[in-house]
């Protein structure tokens, strides 16, 4: 058995074994270490899966203080300082918040899919065009380099999420057929800059880290994207 074959087997089924694998492990310290690491990782995967993120139980409620308990003076000051700090933090967040919640949702969505900007493999444009038609979008684009294309749940609807590679780097495009905006709006949030442009009854969100090239892509999309009528 080769190391590649051993690691494929260990990676696929860390808990299982067979005589050929055991024989290989006898003479291969690297694969033995790999199995130890994979078994440890697998135990953690098992523990992690027992509790999906949104199903985590609420934090335990603290027991009430004993009868007759009095807060010390420094605690009251600490409490007052905490309240003031929290108020300041909320105020700061409010002042610095993006003015547009749609823009904020776009940023949050892109932040939740960091891998979308890492894919480098180009997806066939005709495939994208065909698939988008099924989603009610006509895309006339022929030369763009799209490296990421998913239907994503966004504000309760599945929307096309594309990443186009430009000279300035990856640029995200969300085709928001059901999110109208009244006018073009730029936004800047958490190191990302973008623009929301109206298109028919919906809108298109384009954003990139740093924001270079966003305007160009937005213009391109406004020209090349058309919403197809329902039941097209």
């Amino acid at each position, binding site marked *: 058995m080769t190391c590649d074959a051993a690691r494929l087997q260990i990676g696929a089924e860390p808990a299982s074994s067979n005589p050929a694998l055991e024989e290989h492990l006898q003479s291969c310290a690297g694969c033995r270490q790999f199995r130890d690491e994979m078994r440890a990782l*697998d135990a953690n995967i098992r523990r992690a899966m027992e509790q999906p993120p949104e199903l985590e139980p609420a934090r335990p409620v603290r027991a009430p203080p004993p009868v007759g308990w009095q807060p010390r003076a420094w605690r009251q000051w600490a409490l007052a300082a905490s309240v003031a700090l929290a108020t300041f933090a909320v105020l700061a967040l409010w002042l610095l918040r993006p003015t547009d919640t749609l823009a904020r949702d776009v940023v949050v969505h892109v932040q939740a899919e960091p891998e979308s900007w890492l894919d480098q493999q180009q997806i066939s444009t005709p495939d994208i065009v065909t698939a988008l038609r099924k989603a009610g979008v006509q895309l006339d684009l022929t030369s763009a380099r799209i490296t990421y294309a998913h239907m994503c749940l966004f504000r309760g609807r599945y929307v096309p999420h594309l990443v186009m590679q430009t000279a300035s780097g990856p640029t995200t495009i969300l085709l928001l057929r059901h999110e109208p905006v009244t006018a073009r709006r730029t936004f800047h949030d958490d190191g990302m800059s973008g623009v929301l442009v109206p298109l028919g009854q919906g809108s298109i969100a384009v954003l990139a880290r740093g924001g270079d090239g966003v305007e160009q892509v937005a213009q391109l999309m406004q020209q090349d994207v058309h919403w197809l009528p329902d039941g097209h």
Partner: protein
Amino acid sequence: MSDRRPAASALTAAPADAPAALTQLFESLRPDLLRFAHWLARDRAIAEDIVQESLLRAWRSRDALQEPGAARAWLLTIVRREHARLYERKRLELVPIDEVAEGYGAPRQAGPDDDLTTLRDAIMRLPLEYREPLVLQVLGGFSTEEISRELALSKTAVLTRLFRARNKLRVLCGLAAAPDVADGEVPA
């Protein structure tokens, strides 16, 4: 989802003379089913819909369940198929399949306190083609052969996907990626 039902028990739709034991069995498995559906759908509300629909389907075809001991695997299979049906209706089929571990960029080192949180996030970010067999294996307890039957894939393809899923998680947890395997490569 436009046709989302209330989160009430699917079994309320069962006939009044429903065998109490079966009702109880299904209900006792609901948390497992919801957890399983949640890992597949990555959305709590959608997972609840899937489980709701799955329990209704299971109830309608309850005669197919011969052994109560097989109920968990049977229901998990129904949930997976229900998710697949929903997914096929909703997704764009244009994402390349052969993504490999290095696509995730710089490794992230998890501290002891946030190991599980990091892993949960990483599992949630796995593409479905890798997440689905991993969830079936780890959470569902399905063997590689059973997964290959369920997903209509060769056993080798399932092994490759399971390997890649864990290899991606290795990288995200700060460990070195193992060399990727070619599709269809069979262990010697």
